């Protein structure tokens, strides 16, 4: 990683686990005449390292439960990592206090999946948009705030005269525009979008994606875009990170990933997208289902479903290695030139 210092957001060896065994008393178990303490964890992220370059749209894809949303939330500081580092423009931000974090929150904003849940139903649109601006710019006068709101509302295609309405009066697409407006209101540099379009219909998806691309161009934004929809990624992403069970399998420029996916999981994922052109593509059939992140498999997390797995895959955890073409893959098979 030569361009270490150029990256806007740097994630290094990130681990996040969630305890699922309840509080201290719940953890006590009576076994063989002795009281023992028993703890279980969901290993949501296991050693993820990635860099988000300024001006790019880095897409993170994977199936549900692979930890992509956890990565997004940890990067935003909404969750504290169990281990690992997150830096913003070279400054470590994962161990800051809330007060120290404040200036970063203005630069980093988030758009959530469900616009029905992420807007406060008791606030008018005007109040929703006012809150972040006034909070982050206490010196702004009311007129300046109002001008700013009108500007962001126009830029997302929402009529500023609707400011007095409540969020339930809007359709899903309009609500998502308002959430985008809220994120843009404080002039951020970096936006984390967690499945921003998956709750929307196809024709509305296109509207919202176009809006996000316009905003990127006009405001020079950097996106970390979380999605499970690969066709959106192909359109939107500069680079793509593929995750499986809390680990990064492959990270490559979008074009390269789509023309020559290297990791067996990426290949299977690509071939499973239903496309319009062909009738029944010979997709790569994966046997079995995603294992639970509670008891992680030994070695490569994908070995149970991988058609090319061998003994080494069952024992040894593969590390992300940089190939000649700029793709980073974590796979023994690729490393050994078997694949």
């Amino acid at each position, binding site marked *: 990683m030569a361009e270490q210092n150029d990256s806007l957001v740097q994630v290094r060896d990130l681990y996040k686990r969630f305890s699922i065994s309840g509080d201290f008393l719940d953890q006590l178990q009576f076994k063989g005449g002795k009281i023992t303490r028993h703890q279980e964890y969901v290993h949501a992220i296991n050693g993820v390292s990635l860099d988000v370059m300024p001006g790019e749209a880095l897409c993170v894809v994977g*199936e*549900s439960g692979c930890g992509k949303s956890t990565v997004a939330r940890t990067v935003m500081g909404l969750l504290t990592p169990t281990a690992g580092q997150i830096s913003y423009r070279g400054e470590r931000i994962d161990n800051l206090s809330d007060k120290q974090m404040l200036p970063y929150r203005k630069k980093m904003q988030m758009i959530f999946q469900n616009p029905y849940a992420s807007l406060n139903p008791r606030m008018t649109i005007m109040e929703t948009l006012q809150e972040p601006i006034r909070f982050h710019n206490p010196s702004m006068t009311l007129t300046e705030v109002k001008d700013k709101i009108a500007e962001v509302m126009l830029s997302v295609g929402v009529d500023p005269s609707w400011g007095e309405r409540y969020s339930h009066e809007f*359709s899903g*697409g*309009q609500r998502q525009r308002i959430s985008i407006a809220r994120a843009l209101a404080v002039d951020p540099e970096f936006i984390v979008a967690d499945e921003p379009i998956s709750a929307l*219909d*196809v*024709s*509305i*998806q*296109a*509207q919202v*994606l*176009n809006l996000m*691309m316009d905003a990127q161009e006009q405001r020079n934004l950097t996106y970390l875009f979380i999605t*499970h*929809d*690969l*066709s*959106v990624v*192909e*359109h*939107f992403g500069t680079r793509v990170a593929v995750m499986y069970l809390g680990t990064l399998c492959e990270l490559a420029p*979008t*074009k390269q990933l789509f023309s020559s996916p290297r990791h067996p999981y990426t290949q*299977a*994922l690509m*071939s*499973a*997208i*239903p*496309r*319009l052109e*062909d*009738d*029944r*593509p010979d*997709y790569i*059939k*994966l046997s*079995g*289902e*995603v294992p639970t992140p509670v008891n992680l498999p030994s070695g490569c997390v994908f070995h149970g479903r991988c058609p090319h797995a061998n003994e080494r895959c069952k024992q040894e955890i593969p590390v992300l290695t940089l190939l000649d073409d700029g793709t980073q893959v974590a796979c023994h098979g690729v490393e050994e030139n078997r694949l």
Partner: protein
Amino acid sequence: MPLLEVNNLEVCFGLRSGAVKALRNVSFTLERGERLGIVGESGAGKSVLGFSIINLLSRPGRISSGNVHFEGYDLAHLAPEELRSIRGNRISMIFQDPMMTLNPVLTIGTQMVECLLAHRKISVVDAKRIALKKLQQVQIPSPEKRLDQYPHELSGGMRQRIVIAIGLLLDPDIIIADEPTTALDVTIQAEIMDLMLNLCEQNNVALILITHDLGVVSQVTQRMLVMYAGRIIEQGPTKEVINDAQHPYTQGLMNALPQMAIPGQKLNQIKGTMPPLQRIPKGCSFNPRCEYVMDICEQKLPSFTESGNCQVACHMVAESKQDELLGNEV
């Protein structure tokens, strides 16, 4: 004679603010063993259509006019007892969310046996044997074990397989699948779709697949209906509709797919949103969003025009067909 024939079906929801028509003038047929896709955005009425075929609508929804012919019965006007002998038995339904469909407090085996005993006079042992056979058909690993498990012990993909097995339990003639893979991940979705396709082909079961995913429809179905604001606006063989969509809405829907755009370029969007059912505009319901809108579109509801093997409800298509005809005569 087609297996299922829906004629001028109209569904009404009586709300406090007045009656809202969720389906208007919907007619289509389904042949034995045919796979039909119903596509549309949320609110277009595709699920309501699926529900009303077997009259599963609950108040305030009701079929206000039209009929559904199935083997000499009119399902829209059948007594509840008679309907029950057809539902689940001859026509079964698979719903979107397998966690909601399965009863969380009963084992898989109990639920399957219950369904069999409700429709057939057989012993519990026989019912268990049939249930086991169906579980094997849907390729569930260690099926014997599953019979004694509860739904929460299984993953989403596995649950949907169970729901499919229950759907097939009584060897129905028609399966109505309402977004069967929307709650699942892509790799699992591909497996489940493949499984459904094979089972329908093997058992000569007709499938009505309700989905918003044009990719899935294009891969699974033979014929498709496109719905907008409670009406069918285009129908025909899936390949023809996908490759050569005639209705501006269908075209817009196809073009809005990210795979249709050049990467990095803007997507082709349809402006605006679907109107709420209370406020459907006069004339063609798509007219405020249509880029080819003409005067007549705001006045008169378009009727179906034959275009190749497809039927399209659009004034523009009708006019261009008429011009063609006149041109030929001159």
